[in-house]
């Protein structure tokens, strides 16, 4: 198991953001993590990344318990946050070298970081920006730079929060291809997204979270079957949208006409 979480709970005072969430992501699996705004997706992902301490529960990353052995767990994990905040006064190449250094990658010798940095920059189409300051990057470029940093140290599991936000169609296509290739090489990817067509296109399994609890889990077909019985699906993403809306309690779309 690359990522395994057991009965994860996170409370803020009286408010329970995550309430007994358990899930596992196998090597090579792309696991979608869906839910409406405020359902607890980002909180869960941040706990797995080591940014938040769970109130209760256990997180195991590639066999390392995050609470007992955080450094080994983090060393085998890549994290891509929803907003790409990075050091604006470093160049793209410097940021990646710095990031590699944090993961113990040296400048030369047995672990040549320079080649790997250039490799990742080329992969994410940032090669000609290697020596430019991050402050001159667009949002999409920063997002791709953060992704190249997440894959730089060859992690065996990656946690991604909203990967497609701010990416143009070409960038989105690139990211999908990279994620697929990585999963083919055995990297486990846990990805939260609001773009249901991305989830449908890419994810092997999907967990739907609502008010801090997992309310459904399975492949896209299994989820469809949950809400539509054995009625065959014909409309692809739209069908998943209605599955999602049914499971998470509707959208209040009927009010729009009145307001408009």
């Amino acid at each position, binding site marked *: 198991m690359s990522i395994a979480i057991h009965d994860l709970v996170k409370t803020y005072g009286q408010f329970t953001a995550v309430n007994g969430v358990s899930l596992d992501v196998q090597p090579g699996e792309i696991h979608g993590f869906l839910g409406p705004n405020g359902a607890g997706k980002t909180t869960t992902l941040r706990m797995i990344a080591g940014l938040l301490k769970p109130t209760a529960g256990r997180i195991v990353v590639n066999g390392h318990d995050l609470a007992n052995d955080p450094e080994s767990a983090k060393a085998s994990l890549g994290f891509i946050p929803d907003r790409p905040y990075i*050091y604006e006064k470093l160049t793209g190449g410097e940021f990646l070298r710095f990031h590699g250094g944090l993961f113990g990658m040296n400048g030369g010798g047995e672990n040549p970081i320079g080649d790997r940095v250039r490799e990742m920059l080329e992969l994410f189409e940032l090669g000609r920006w290697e020596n430019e300051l991050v402050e001159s990057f667009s949002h999409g470029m920063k997002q791709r730079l953060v992704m190249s940093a997440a894959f730089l140290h060859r992690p065996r599991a990656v946690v991604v929060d909203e990967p497609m936000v701010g990416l143009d169609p070409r960038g989105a296509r690139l990211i999908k291809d990279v994620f697929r290739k990585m999963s083919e090489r055995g990297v486990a990817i846990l990805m939260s997204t609001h773009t249901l067509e991305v989830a449908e296109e890419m994810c092997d399994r999907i967990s739907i979270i609502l008010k801090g609890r997992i309310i459904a889990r399975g492949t896209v077909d299994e989820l469809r079957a949950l809400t539509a019985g054995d009625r065959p699906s014909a409309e692809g993403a739209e069908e998943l949208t209605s599955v999602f809306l049914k499971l998470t309690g509707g959208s209040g779309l009927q009010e729009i006409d009145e307001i408009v």
Partner: protein
Amino acid sequence: MEASFPYLLLPSVWASRNRARRRQRGDLIRGVMFGGVGLIVCAALFQGAYWLTAQLESYEDLGDYLLRLGLSWLFLTFLSFLAFSGVVTALSTFFLSEDLRVLLAAPLPVRRLFHARFVRTVAQASWMVVIFLAPVLMGVGRARCAGAGFYAVAVLTTIPFAVIPVAAGTLVTLLLVNTFPARRARDILMLMGLLFAASLVVLLRFIRPEQLMKVESLPDLTDFFATLQSPITPMLPSFWAGETLFASLRGGVDWLHFAALWTTAFAAVVVVRMANERWYFTGYSRAQESPKARFTQLRQLEAVVRWLPLSTVRRQLLIKDLKIFLRDVSQWSQLLLLMALVLVYLYNFRVLDLERIPYMSGVVKNVYAFVNLGMAGFVMATVAVRFVFPAVSSEGAAFWIIRTSPVSLRDFLWSKFWTGLVPVLALTEVLTIAGNEFLGVDPFIKMMAALAIVFMSFALVGLAIGLGARYPRFNADPTQVAGSYGGVAFMIQAVLFVIVMIVLLGWPASIYLFQRARRVPLTASQQILMTGCFASAAAISIATWLTSMRSGVRALRAMAD
């Protein structure tokens, strides 16, 4: 759509009201501290102006002449400050402010937006001048027993006096932004401003103002003022303001200069408004473009750091911190001001003529050595609160990178400590050793002070890093971080620490010097007492250093809660 321009000022008013209503930890202590310092400064300005004006009154015509020149000179100083402040503020209010995206997308006439932004620019650029000017003019008025009319004229003079240079500054900004990218212009201006301030500090010290206080130098003083009366001075608003106020002090009204002030202010606003209507949008549009930034790669720095015996993680953290600091003009340029202050500090010791006190010079020199040590401690605290305390906060929103990497928060914080320690230690050691060298103090005191600085640096840098980790502000710039609750708490603790250290070192050192002056050897009990004091000073320093660092690491770990 038809909202008048004051409506556009409402967000600033509401934001200020919300800030005033917001209650944060440390508000009281911060308020008392900053308010107290502000009151003391205002009271000193009032008292100084009152005393000087009262003194000048005894010189009759010469006194009047000097007062008139003094007022003109005072306004001339503020004029240059206001013009520069106007340039910098206009850059932010007209071109870089985030809310412009909302305002420019709204169907607002350019003129209305200009009026709102200009009022804001004048207010932001001139509030500090008004705060300094008010007690000075009140002191002058009180000394001359001026009536209410003088104060009314003072207010009516200050308004156009502030508007004229700020309008000129706004015009310069408009031209600058149409020539350079806005962010580059800001960097250039910031650098120019700090160079100006630094050279002013050095210049003011090197003309040795204390000489002006001597009676025998009075003719020089009048010469000095007279040189300010160049042919162009009567053309400046500072001269008009000075003349208007001087006339009012004597119970009359100088309508000519008063009218000159107001008409020029109106004309300046009209001219800037026309220029604004013509070039503002082009400038704003240019300010949005982000051409590839010019910067130094600092490859030599990387090469040097590679030679240091550090782990990969610490080396990368050090390279990152240094590069970010050196590429941010708003950060490193403040070092220029610091260097100017260091120069002035050392120069003061250089010109200190203690030999004039024949029998006491030896004692006074050694007392000054402790003044030097205390001053170095305060310099250390000031440098630490500005450059070391914000070290954790400076990670900003990018702190997730450290927290999700396999680096322990302990390693991270210690890396910040060593990065801060080396420059602080080097700076304060240079200050102390050079200061004591200039003074020619006893070798024992010299050595003790140099050693004390090492302990104090570890303690204060540790305290700054630890408190910086306990009270971080990730969304604020370093100057704001230094003035936050944690920064104020650090300054209070740092000052207390320095005082304790001076007492613990000064007392045994005085016993040693006293015995030496009497040519009597130290008794066993005195030796034990001295050792106890020195050991206590060392123990307090080490305890401050280590407990602060530990509490900082704990606070960083608790962030995940």
